[in-house]
Protein backbone atom coordinates (compact mmCIF):
# COMPACT_ATOMS: atom_id res chain seq x y z
CA UNK A 1 0.00 0.00 0.00
CA UNK A 2 2.89 2.31 0.72
CA UNK A 3 4.06 1.86 -2.86
CA UNK A 4 0.64 2.68 -4.28
CA UNK A 5 0.67 5.78 -2.13
CA UNK A 6 4.11 6.74 -3.42
CA UNK A 7 2.93 6.40 -7.00
CA UNK A 8 -0.24 8.42 -6.44
CA UNK A 9 1.67 11.19 -4.67
CA UNK A 10 4.28 11.12 -7.42
CA UNK A 11 1.74 11.44 -10.20
CA UNK A 12 0.06 14.38 -8.49
CA UNK A 13 3.38 16.13 -7.83
CA UNK A 14 4.05 15.64 -11.54
CA UNK A 15 1.32 18.17 -12.24
CA UNK A 16 3.29 20.77 -10.31
CA UNK A 17 6.46 19.88 -12.21
CA UNK A 18 4.62 20.11 -15.52
CA UNK A 19 3.58 23.61 -14.52
CA UNK A 20 7.24 24.40 -13.85
CA UNK A 21 8.29 22.92 -17.15
CA UNK A 22 5.80 24.00 -19.81
CA UNK A 23 6.96 27.61 -19.95
CA UNK A 24 10.59 26.56 -20.22
CA UNK A 25 9.69 24.16 -23.01
CA UNK A 26 7.66 26.79 -24.87
CA UNK A 27 10.44 29.40 -24.71
CA UNK A 28 12.95 26.88 -26.01
CA UNK A 29 10.66 25.39 -28.61
CA UNK A 30 9.68 28.71 -30.18
CA UNK A 31 12.63 31.08 -29.83
CA UNK A 32 15.41 28.70 -28.78
CA UNK A 33 15.87 30.64 -25.57
CA UNK A 34 17.04 28.47 -22.68
CA UNK A 35 15.75 30.65 -19.91
CA UNK A 36 18.01 30.10 -16.92
CA UNK A 37 16.03 32.74 -15.01
CA UNK A 38 12.87 30.64 -15.41
CA UNK A 39 12.76 29.50 -11.79
CA UNK A 40 13.66 32.91 -10.39
CA UNK A 41 10.86 34.48 -12.37
CA UNK A 42 8.47 31.95 -10.84
CA UNK A 43 9.69 33.04 -7.40
CA UNK A 44 9.18 36.67 -8.38
CA UNK A 45 5.62 35.78 -9.36
CA UNK A 46 5.14 34.13 -5.97
CA UNK A 47 6.43 37.22 -4.15
CA UNK A 48 4.19 39.44 -6.25
CA UNK A 49 1.25 37.22 -5.22
CA UNK A 50 2.20 37.59 -1.56
CA UNK A 51 2.40 41.35 -1.99
CA UNK A 52 -0.86 41.58 -3.92
CA UNK A 53 -2.69 39.51 -1.30
CA UNK A 54 -1.29 41.65 1.54
CA UNK A 55 -2.18 44.93 -0.11
CA UNK A 56 -5.53 44.24 -1.77
CA UNK A 57 -6.85 41.50 0.55
CA UNK A 58 -8.01 39.67 -2.53
CA UNK A 59 -8.77 35.99 -1.80
CA UNK A 60 -5.55 33.99 -2.01
CA UNK A 61 -6.82 31.67 -4.71
CA UNK A 62 -7.76 34.56 -6.99
CA UNK A 63 -4.39 36.27 -6.80
CA UNK A 64 -3.48 34.67 -10.11
CA UNK A 65 -5.98 36.98 -11.82
CA UNK A 66 -3.55 39.82 -11.15
CA UNK A 67 -0.21 38.01 -11.12
CA UNK A 68 -0.65 36.12 -14.41
CA UNK A 69 -1.33 39.25 -16.53
CA UNK A 70 1.49 41.14 -14.78
CA UNK A 71 3.96 38.35 -15.51
CA UNK A 72 2.69 37.93 -19.08
CA UNK A 73 3.31 41.62 -19.70
CA UNK A 74 6.76 41.31 -18.13
CA UNK A 75 7.42 38.37 -20.45
CA UNK A 76 6.48 40.35 -23.54
CA UNK A 77 8.64 43.29 -22.49
CA UNK A 78 11.67 41.15 -21.54
CA UNK A 79 11.41 39.26 -24.82
CA UNK A 80 11.19 42.39 -26.93
CA UNK A 81 14.13 43.99 -25.12
CA UNK A 82 16.91 41.94 -23.58
CA UNK A 83 16.05 38.45 -24.87
CA UNK A 84 15.64 39.66 -28.45
CA UNK A 85 18.80 41.71 -28.14
CA UNK A 86 20.64 38.57 -27.07
CA UNK A 87 19.05 36.47 -29.82
CA UNK A 88 20.17 39.01 -32.43
CA UNK A 89 23.76 38.28 -31.38
CA UNK A 90 23.70 34.52 -30.92
CA UNK A 91 21.77 31.75 -29.25
CA UNK A 92 24.63 31.32 -26.78
CA UNK A 93 24.33 34.95 -25.74
CA UNK A 94 20.82 34.21 -24.50
CA UNK A 95 22.32 31.72 -22.04
CA UNK A 96 24.61 34.40 -20.62
CA UNK A 97 21.84 36.98 -20.51
CA UNK A 98 19.30 34.74 -18.78
CA UNK A 99 21.99 33.54 -16.37
CA UNK A 100 22.78 37.15 -15.56
CA UNK A 101 19.09 37.89 -15.11
CA UNK A 102 18.86 34.94 -12.74
CA UNK A 103 21.72 36.26 -10.60
CA UNK A 104 20.26 39.76 -10.55
CA UNK A 105 16.80 38.54 -9.53
CA UNK A 106 18.12 36.25 -6.81
CA UNK A 107 20.29 38.92 -5.26
CA UNK A 108 17.60 41.53 -5.63
CA UNK A 109 15.17 39.30 -3.73
CA UNK A 110 17.79 38.63 -1.04
CA UNK A 111 18.42 42.35 -0.70
CA UNK A 112 14.82 43.43 -0.41
CA UNK A 113 13.03 40.43 1.10
CA UNK A 114 15.84 38.72 3.12
CA UNK A 115 16.63 35.03 2.89
CA UNK A 116 13.56 34.02 4.95
CA UNK A 117 11.17 31.68 3.23
CA UNK A 118 7.57 32.63 2.74
CA UNK A 119 4.49 30.67 1.87
CA UNK A 120 1.31 31.75 0.14
CA UNK A 121 -1.99 31.35 1.93
CA UNK A 122 -0.89 29.15 4.80
CA UNK A 123 -3.78 28.11 6.98
CA UNK A 124 -6.24 28.00 4.11
CA UNK A 125 -8.32 24.79 4.36
CA UNK A 126 -7.66 24.00 0.72
CA UNK A 127 -3.93 24.32 1.22
CA UNK A 128 -3.68 22.25 4.38
CA UNK A 129 -6.63 19.89 3.95
CA UNK A 130 -6.63 16.38 2.57
CA UNK A 131 -8.89 13.40 2.07
CA UNK A 132 -8.30 9.72 2.63
CA UNK A 133 -8.36 6.85 0.20
CA UNK A 134 -8.53 3.68 2.25
CA UNK A 135 -6.66 3.70 5.50
CA UNK A 136 -3.15 4.58 4.43
CA UNK A 137 -3.42 7.02 1.58
CA UNK A 138 -3.87 10.69 2.31
CA UNK A 139 -4.26 13.00 -0.65
CA UNK A 140 -3.87 16.75 -0.27
CA UNK A 141 -6.59 18.81 -1.95
CA UNK A 142 -3.95 21.26 -3.05
CA UNK A 143 -2.02 18.69 -5.10
CA UNK A 144 -5.19 17.60 -6.85
CA UNK A 145 -6.03 21.21 -7.64
CA UNK A 146 -2.52 21.90 -8.94
CA UNK A 147 -2.63 18.78 -11.11
CA UNK A 148 -5.98 19.89 -12.52
CA UNK A 149 -4.60 23.39 -13.16
CA UNK A 150 -1.62 21.89 -15.00
CA UNK A 151 -3.90 19.82 -17.23
CA UNK A 152 -6.12 22.82 -17.92
CA UNK A 153 -3.09 24.97 -18.74
CA UNK A 154 -1.72 22.37 -21.14
CA UNK A 155 -5.12 21.94 -22.79
CA UNK A 156 -5.44 25.70 -23.09
CA UNK A 157 -1.98 26.08 -24.58
CA UNK A 158 -2.62 23.28 -27.01
CA UNK A 159 -5.91 24.79 -28.08
CA UNK A 160 -4.35 28.23 -28.47
CA UNK A 161 -1.42 26.92 -30.49
CA UNK A 162 -3.52 24.78 -32.80
CA UNK A 163 -6.62 26.88 -33.32
CA UNK A 164 -5.87 30.58 -32.94
CA UNK A 165 -4.27 32.94 -35.42
CA UNK A 166 -1.40 33.78 -33.10
CA UNK A 167 -0.95 30.14 -32.16
CA UNK A 168 -0.52 29.32 -35.82
CA UNK A 169 1.93 32.18 -36.22
CA UNK A 170 3.90 30.98 -33.19
CA UNK A 171 4.27 27.54 -34.77
CA UNK A 172 5.12 29.06 -38.15
CA UNK A 173 7.79 31.30 -36.65
CA UNK A 174 9.21 28.38 -34.69
CA UNK A 175 9.49 26.44 -37.98
CA UNK A 176 11.03 29.16 -40.11
CA UNK A 177 11.05 32.76 -39.00
CA UNK A 178 12.34 34.06 -42.31
CA UNK A 179 9.50 32.42 -44.24
CA UNK A 180 7.11 33.89 -41.67
CA UNK A 181 8.54 37.35 -42.33
CA UNK A 182 7.92 36.82 -46.03
CA UNK A 183 4.28 36.22 -45.12
CA UNK A 184 4.23 39.59 -43.36
CA UNK A 185 4.61 38.37 -39.79
CA UNK A 186 6.80 40.36 -37.42
CA UNK A 187 8.52 37.48 -35.67
CA UNK A 188 9.68 39.71 -32.81
CA UNK A 189 6.08 40.45 -31.90
CA UNK A 190 5.17 36.78 -32.24
CA UNK A 191 8.11 35.86 -29.99
CA UNK A 192 6.82 38.42 -27.50
CA UNK A 193 3.42 36.75 -27.47
CA UNK A 194 4.98 33.33 -26.96
CA UNK A 195 7.03 34.74 -24.08
CA UNK A 196 3.89 36.27 -22.56
CA UNK A 197 2.25 32.83 -22.64
CA UNK A 198 5.31 31.20 -21.11
CA UNK A 199 5.51 33.81 -18.36
CA UNK A 200 1.82 33.34 -17.63
CA UNK A 201 2.51 29.69 -16.87
CA UNK A 202 5.57 30.73 -14.85
CA UNK A 203 3.29 32.88 -12.70
CA UNK A 204 1.01 29.91 -12.01
CA UNK A 205 4.05 27.76 -11.22
CA UNK A 206 5.32 30.31 -8.69
CA UNK A 207 1.96 30.67 -6.97
CA UNK A 208 1.41 26.91 -6.92
CA UNK A 209 4.81 26.24 -5.42
CA UNK A 210 4.32 29.03 -2.88
CA UNK A 211 1.18 27.25 -1.69
CA UNK A 212 2.59 23.74 -1.88
CA UNK A 213 5.85 24.55 -0.13
CA UNK A 214 7.78 27.71 0.63
CA UNK A 215 9.49 30.29 -1.50
CA UNK A 216 12.86 31.80 -0.75
CA UNK A 217 15.13 33.81 -3.05
CA UNK A 218 17.11 30.69 -3.99
CA UNK A 219 14.14 28.37 -4.58
CA UNK A 220 14.07 29.43 -8.23
CA UNK A 221 17.37 27.88 -9.19
CA UNK A 222 17.80 25.12 -6.64
CA UNK A 223 14.34 23.63 -7.09
CA UNK A 224 12.06 25.04 -9.77
CA UNK A 225 14.56 25.45 -12.61
CA UNK A 226 16.21 22.07 -12.01
CA UNK A 227 12.93 20.17 -11.79
CA UNK A 228 11.65 22.00 -14.83
CA UNK A 229 14.75 21.02 -16.80
CA UNK A 230 14.46 17.42 -15.69
CA UNK A 231 10.79 17.25 -16.63
CA UNK A 232 11.43 18.82 -20.04
CA UNK A 233 14.28 16.46 -20.85
CA UNK A 234 12.47 13.36 -19.63
CA UNK A 235 9.32 14.25 -21.53
CA UNK A 236 11.05 15.44 -24.68
CA UNK A 237 12.15 18.92 -25.75
CA UNK A 238 9.49 21.07 -27.31
CA UNK A 239 6.61 18.73 -26.55
CA UNK A 240 3.83 20.24 -24.44
CA UNK A 241 2.27 17.05 -23.17
CA UNK A 242 5.78 15.71 -22.78
CA UNK A 243 6.20 18.11 -19.88
CA UNK A 244 3.33 16.42 -18.08
CA UNK A 245 4.73 12.97 -18.83
CA UNK A 246 8.18 14.15 -17.74
CA UNK A 247 6.78 15.77 -14.61
CA UNK A 248 4.86 12.65 -13.65
CA UNK A 249 7.86 10.36 -14.24
CA UNK A 250 10.05 12.70 -12.19
CA UNK A 251 7.47 12.90 -9.43
CA UNK A 252 6.95 9.14 -9.24
CA UNK A 253 10.71 8.50 -9.28
CA UNK A 254 11.17 10.92 -6.40
CA UNK A 255 8.39 9.38 -4.33
CA UNK A 256 9.65 5.87 -4.93
CA UNK A 257 13.14 7.01 -4.00
CA UNK A 258 11.76 8.52 -0.82
CA UNK A 259 9.98 5.25 -0.09
CA UNK A 260 13.30 3.40 -0.22
CA UNK A 261 15.14 5.98 1.80
CA UNK A 262 13.79 9.40 2.62
CA UNK A 263 17.12 11.03 1.80
CA UNK A 264 17.12 9.56 -1.71
CA UNK A 265 14.05 11.46 -2.89
CA UNK A 266 15.73 14.09 -5.04
CA UNK A 267 18.56 11.79 -6.09
CA UNK A 268 16.13 9.21 -7.48
CA UNK A 269 14.57 11.85 -9.70
CA UNK A 270 17.91 12.83 -11.16
CA UNK A 271 18.91 9.19 -11.72
CA UNK A 272 15.85 8.76 -13.94
CA UNK A 273 16.73 12.06 -15.64
CA UNK A 274 20.24 10.74 -16.36
CA UNK A 275 18.93 7.39 -17.53
CA UNK A 276 16.64 9.10 -20.03
CA UNK A 277 19.49 11.29 -21.26
CA UNK A 278 21.62 8.21 -21.88
CA UNK A 279 19.02 5.78 -23.20
CA UNK A 280 16.51 8.02 -24.93
CA UNK A 281 17.96 11.49 -25.35
CA UNK A 282 15.04 12.68 -27.45
CA UNK A 283 12.74 12.16 -24.45
CA UNK A 284 9.88 9.79 -23.81
CA UNK A 285 7.20 11.41 -25.93
CA UNK A 286 9.05 12.70 -28.98
CA UNK A 287 10.11 10.56 -31.86
CA UNK A 288 13.66 10.71 -33.16
CA UNK A 289 14.41 13.99 -34.85
CA UNK A 290 12.65 14.13 -38.19
CA UNK A 291 14.59 15.07 -41.29
Amino acid at each position, binding site marked *: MAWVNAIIQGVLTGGLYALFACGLSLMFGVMKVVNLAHGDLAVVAGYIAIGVIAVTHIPVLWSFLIVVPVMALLGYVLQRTIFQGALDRSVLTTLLVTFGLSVVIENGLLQFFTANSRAIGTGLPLVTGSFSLGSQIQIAYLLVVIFAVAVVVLLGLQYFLSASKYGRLIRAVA*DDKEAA*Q*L*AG*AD*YRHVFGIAAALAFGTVALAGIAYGMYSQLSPTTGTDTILLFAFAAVVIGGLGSLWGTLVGGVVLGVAQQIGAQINISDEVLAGYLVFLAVLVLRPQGLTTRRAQS
Partner: protein
Amino acid sequence: MTLPAVKGDGEVGGERPDSGTPLLDVRDLVVHHGQLRALDAVSLRVLPGEVYAIIGANGAGKSTLLRTIAGLHHPTAGSVLFDGKDVTRLRPERRARQGIVLVPEGRRLFGSLSVEENLRVGAAYGRPGPWTIERVYQMFGWMQERRSQPTAQLSGGEQQTLAIGRALVANPRVLLLDELSLGLAPVVVQRIYGMLPQIMATGLTVLLVEQDVSQALRVASHIQCLLEGRTTLEGRPADVTADQVEAAYFGLAPAASSGQTGEGSEP
Protein backbone atom coordinates in the same frame (compact mmCIF):
# COMPACT_ATOMS: atom_id res chain seq x y z
CA MET B 1 14.58 60.13 -55.91
CA THR B 2 11.91 62.08 -57.83
CA LEU B 3 9.94 60.29 -60.45
CA PRO B 4 10.65 62.38 -63.57
CA ALA B 5 14.37 61.70 -63.17
CA VAL B 6 13.69 58.07 -63.97
CA LYS B 7 12.64 58.78 -67.52
CA GLY B 8 15.10 57.92 -70.18
CA ASP B 9 18.19 57.73 -68.03
CA GLY B 10 19.85 54.53 -69.07
CA GLU B 11 17.81 53.07 -71.90
CA VAL B 12 20.49 52.10 -74.34
CA GLY B 13 18.61 49.10 -75.62
CA GLY B 14 15.71 51.40 -76.32
CA GLU B 15 13.16 48.89 -77.54
CA ARG B 16 11.19 48.74 -74.28
CA PRO B 17 8.35 51.24 -73.91
CA ASP B 18 9.54 53.78 -71.39
CA SER B 19 6.04 54.92 -70.56
CA GLY B 20 4.58 54.42 -67.11
CA THR B 21 6.14 54.24 -63.69
CA PRO B 22 7.95 50.98 -63.04
CA LEU B 23 6.31 49.01 -60.24
CA LEU B 24 9.70 47.91 -59.04
CA ASP B 25 12.70 50.09 -59.64
CA VAL B 26 16.03 48.75 -58.43
CA ARG B 27 18.92 51.18 -58.73
CA ASP B 28 22.62 50.31 -58.61
CA LEU B 29 22.22 47.68 -55.94
CA VAL B 30 25.43 46.56 -54.26
CA VAL B 31 25.21 43.66 -51.80
CA HIS B 32 28.04 42.01 -49.92
CA HIS B 33 28.11 38.60 -48.30
CA GLY B 34 30.97 39.26 -45.92
CA GLN B 35 33.90 40.14 -48.16
CA LEU B 36 32.24 38.80 -51.27
CA ARG B 37 30.57 41.29 -53.56
CA ALA B 38 27.47 39.31 -54.49
CA LEU B 39 25.79 42.09 -56.46
CA ASP B 40 27.66 44.88 -58.17
CA ALA B 41 25.56 47.87 -59.19
CA VAL B 42 22.61 45.90 -60.54
CA SER B 43 19.67 47.92 -61.77
CA LEU B 44 16.34 46.80 -63.11
CA ARG B 45 12.91 48.22 -63.78
CA VAL B 46 9.87 46.01 -63.73
CA LEU B 47 6.77 47.47 -65.34
CA PRO B 48 3.28 46.61 -64.10
CA GLY B 49 1.86 43.43 -65.60
CA GLU B 50 5.22 42.20 -66.80
CA VAL B 51 6.94 38.84 -66.37
CA TYR B 52 10.53 39.83 -65.79
CA ALA B 53 13.07 37.02 -65.66
CA ILE B 54 16.54 37.10 -64.19
CA ILE B 55 18.73 34.37 -65.63
CA GLY B 56 22.27 33.39 -64.81
CA ALA B 57 24.47 30.55 -63.67
CA ASN B 58 24.92 29.32 -60.13
CA GLY B 59 26.32 32.02 -57.90
CA ALA B 60 25.53 34.83 -60.30
CA GLY B 61 23.66 36.66 -57.55
CA LYS B 62 20.11 35.98 -58.74
CA SER B 63 18.76 34.78 -55.42
CA THR B 64 20.63 37.52 -53.57
CA LEU B 65 18.90 40.05 -55.81
CA LEU B 66 15.43 38.70 -55.05
CA ARG B 67 16.17 38.36 -51.34
CA THR B 68 17.44 41.94 -51.20
CA ILE B 69 14.30 43.18 -52.94
CA ALA B 70 12.25 41.24 -50.38
CA GLY B 71 14.27 42.80 -47.56
CA LEU B 72 16.16 39.75 -46.32
CA HIS B 73 19.57 41.21 -47.22
CA HIS B 74 20.72 44.74 -46.60
CA PRO B 75 22.39 46.41 -49.57
CA THR B 76 25.70 48.20 -49.12
CA ALA B 77 24.61 50.76 -51.68
CA GLY B 78 21.77 51.42 -54.05
CA SER B 79 18.05 51.55 -53.53
CA VAL B 80 14.83 49.66 -54.11
CA LEU B 81 11.78 51.66 -55.10
CA PHE B 82 8.36 50.07 -55.01
CA ASP B 83 5.57 51.94 -56.78
CA GLY B 84 7.70 55.08 -56.59
CA LYS B 85 8.38 54.82 -52.84
CA ASP B 86 11.79 54.01 -51.40
CA VAL B 87 11.53 50.73 -49.47
CA THR B 88 15.27 50.09 -49.12
CA ARG B 89 15.17 50.47 -45.34
CA LEU B 90 11.89 48.64 -44.72
CA ARG B 91 11.87 45.36 -42.83
CA PRO B 92 10.86 42.29 -44.88
CA GLU B 93 7.49 41.87 -43.15
CA ARG B 94 6.55 45.48 -43.97
CA ARG B 95 7.44 44.98 -47.61
CA ALA B 96 5.38 41.79 -47.68
CA ARG B 97 2.37 43.66 -46.28
CA GLN B 98 2.78 46.31 -48.98
CA GLY B 99 2.71 43.67 -51.69
CA ILE B 100 6.27 42.49 -52.37
CA VAL B 101 5.97 38.78 -51.75
CA LEU B 102 8.77 36.29 -52.28
CA VAL B 103 8.40 32.57 -52.89
CA PRO B 104 11.81 31.62 -51.54
CA GLU B 105 14.22 29.12 -52.98
CA GLY B 106 13.64 25.65 -51.56
CA ARG B 107 9.94 26.45 -50.90
CA ARG B 108 10.39 26.91 -47.15
CA LEU B 109 6.95 25.66 -46.14
CA PHE B 110 6.07 25.52 -42.45
CA GLY B 111 6.77 21.88 -41.70
CA SER B 112 4.69 21.49 -38.56
CA LEU B 113 1.67 23.18 -40.14
CA SER B 114 -0.92 21.57 -42.36
CA VAL B 115 -1.55 22.57 -45.97
CA GLU B 116 -4.41 24.85 -44.99
CA GLU B 117 -2.51 26.34 -42.07
CA ASN B 118 0.31 27.27 -44.42
CA LEU B 119 -2.18 29.13 -46.58
CA ARG B 120 -3.71 30.80 -43.54
CA VAL B 121 -0.35 32.10 -42.39
CA GLY B 122 0.19 33.39 -45.92
CA ALA B 123 -3.12 35.24 -45.75
CA ALA B 124 -2.72 36.51 -42.17
CA TYR B 125 -1.17 39.86 -43.11
CA GLY B 126 -2.18 39.92 -46.75
CA ARG B 127 -3.75 42.77 -48.65
CA PRO B 128 -7.36 42.52 -49.73
CA GLY B 129 -7.69 41.32 -53.30
CA PRO B 130 -8.82 38.63 -55.70
CA TRP B 131 -6.85 35.79 -54.10
CA THR B 132 -8.40 33.89 -51.22
CA ILE B 133 -7.81 30.44 -49.84
CA GLU B 134 -11.05 29.39 -51.54
CA ARG B 135 -9.78 30.60 -54.90
CA VAL B 136 -6.51 28.74 -54.47
CA TYR B 137 -8.53 25.62 -53.68
CA GLN B 138 -10.58 26.15 -56.84
CA MET B 139 -7.41 26.36 -58.87
CA PHE B 140 -5.80 23.33 -57.23
CA GLY B 141 -8.42 20.79 -56.29
CA TRP B 142 -5.98 18.40 -54.64
CA MET B 143 -5.06 21.05 -52.10
CA GLN B 144 -8.55 21.16 -50.67
CA GLU B 145 -8.74 17.38 -50.47
CA ARG B 146 -5.45 17.29 -48.59
CA ARG B 147 -5.91 20.47 -46.60
CA SER B 148 -5.26 18.91 -43.22
CA GLN B 149 -2.19 16.91 -44.23
CA PRO B 150 1.26 17.94 -43.11
CA THR B 151 3.35 19.41 -45.92
CA ALA B 152 5.99 16.68 -45.61
CA GLN B 153 3.52 14.31 -47.28
CA LEU B 154 3.35 16.40 -50.45
CA SER B 155 5.49 15.76 -53.50
CA GLY B 156 8.08 18.32 -54.55
CA GLY B 157 5.82 19.80 -57.20
CA GLU B 158 2.91 19.98 -54.80
CA GLN B 159 5.09 21.69 -52.22
CA GLN B 160 6.19 24.25 -54.78
CA THR B 161 2.59 24.84 -55.81
CA LEU B 162 1.60 25.28 -52.16
CA ALA B 163 4.46 27.75 -51.68
CA ILE B 164 3.10 29.76 -54.61
CA GLY B 165 -0.42 29.50 -53.18
CA ARG B 166 0.83 30.73 -49.81
CA ALA B 167 2.27 33.79 -51.55
CA LEU B 168 -0.82 34.38 -53.71
CA VAL B 169 -3.26 34.54 -50.80
CA ALA B 170 -1.35 37.59 -49.56
CA ASN B 171 -2.47 39.29 -52.79
CA PRO B 172 0.96 40.52 -53.81
CA ARG B 173 1.39 43.33 -56.31
CA VAL B 174 4.72 41.93 -57.37
CA LEU B 175 5.38 38.24 -56.93
CA LEU B 176 9.03 37.23 -56.65
CA LEU B 177 9.66 33.62 -57.67
CA ASP B 178 13.04 32.19 -56.79
CA GLU B 179 14.13 29.15 -58.80
CA LEU B 180 10.78 27.38 -59.08
CA SER B 181 12.26 24.52 -61.08
CA LEU B 182 14.85 23.56 -58.48
CA GLY B 183 14.79 19.81 -57.84
CA LEU B 184 11.64 19.21 -59.89
CA ALA B 185 11.07 16.96 -62.89
CA PRO B 186 10.76 18.83 -66.23
CA VAL B 187 7.10 17.79 -66.60
CA VAL B 188 6.31 19.25 -63.21
CA VAL B 189 8.19 22.44 -64.02
CA GLN B 190 6.14 22.77 -67.23
CA ARG B 191 2.94 22.37 -65.27
CA ILE B 192 3.93 25.00 -62.71
CA TYR B 193 4.97 27.53 -65.34
CA GLY B 194 1.76 26.66 -67.15
CA MET B 195 -0.18 28.27 -64.28
CA LEU B 196 1.55 31.58 -64.80
CA PRO B 197 -0.93 33.05 -67.34
CA GLN B 198 -3.83 32.30 -64.98
CA ILE B 199 -1.96 34.04 -62.17
CA MET B 200 -1.00 37.01 -64.32
CA ALA B 201 -4.63 37.41 -65.35
CA THR B 202 -5.44 38.68 -61.86
CA GLY B 203 -3.24 41.70 -62.43
CA LEU B 204 0.01 40.60 -60.84
CA THR B 205 3.51 41.47 -61.84
CA VAL B 206 6.12 38.73 -61.67
CA LEU B 207 9.86 38.94 -61.18
CA LEU B 208 11.40 35.51 -61.39
CA VAL B 209 14.80 33.95 -61.15
CA GLU B 210 15.51 30.91 -63.26
CA GLN B 211 18.54 28.83 -64.03
CA ASP B 212 16.75 27.13 -66.90
CA VAL B 213 17.23 29.70 -69.65
CA SER B 214 14.86 28.21 -72.22
CA GLN B 215 12.10 28.15 -69.62
CA ALA B 216 12.74 31.79 -68.77
CA LEU B 217 12.81 32.84 -72.42
CA ARG B 218 9.49 31.09 -72.97
CA VAL B 219 7.54 32.84 -70.20
CA ALA B 220 9.21 36.21 -69.81
CA SER B 221 8.41 39.51 -71.45
CA HIS B 222 11.78 40.84 -70.42
CA ILE B 223 14.98 39.10 -69.43
CA GLN B 224 18.12 40.17 -67.68
CA CYS B 225 21.23 38.04 -67.35
CA LEU B 226 23.54 38.23 -64.36
CA LEU B 227 27.11 37.02 -64.24
CA GLU B 228 29.14 37.27 -61.03
CA GLY B 229 26.88 39.97 -59.68
CA ARG B 230 26.78 42.16 -62.79
CA THR B 231 24.28 42.61 -65.56
CA THR B 232 25.61 41.16 -68.80
CA LEU B 233 22.53 41.24 -70.99
CA GLU B 234 19.09 42.77 -70.92
CA GLY B 235 16.24 42.83 -73.37
CA ARG B 236 13.07 41.24 -74.70
CA PRO B 237 13.39 37.53 -75.43
CA ALA B 238 12.54 38.21 -79.07
CA ASP B 239 15.37 40.69 -79.43
CA VAL B 240 18.23 38.63 -78.04
CA THR B 241 19.97 35.87 -79.95
CA ALA B 242 20.94 32.52 -78.54
CA ASP B 243 24.60 33.47 -79.00
CA GLN B 244 24.17 36.63 -76.99
CA VAL B 245 22.46 34.74 -74.19
CA GLU B 246 25.16 32.11 -74.17
CA ALA B 247 27.90 34.70 -74.06
CA ALA B 248 26.18 36.62 -71.28
CA TYR B 249 25.39 33.48 -69.31
CA PHE B 250 28.88 31.99 -69.36
CA GLY B 251 30.87 35.21 -69.57
CA LEU B 252 32.42 34.47 -72.95
CA ALA B 253 33.56 37.30 -75.17
CA PRO B 254 30.56 38.63 -77.15
CA ALA B 255 30.24 36.57 -80.31
CA ALA B 256 31.14 38.35 -83.57
CA SER B 257 29.54 41.72 -84.20
CA SER B 258 26.36 41.58 -82.13
CA GLY B 259 26.96 43.52 -78.93
CA GLN B 260 24.61 46.46 -79.01
CA THR B 261 21.82 45.11 -76.77
CA GLY B 262 23.95 43.93 -73.88
CA GLU B 263 26.93 45.31 -72.01
CA GLY B 264 26.14 48.94 -72.51
CA SER B 265 22.86 49.09 -70.62
CA GLU B 266 24.54 50.24 -67.42
CA PRO B 267 24.79 54.00 -67.12
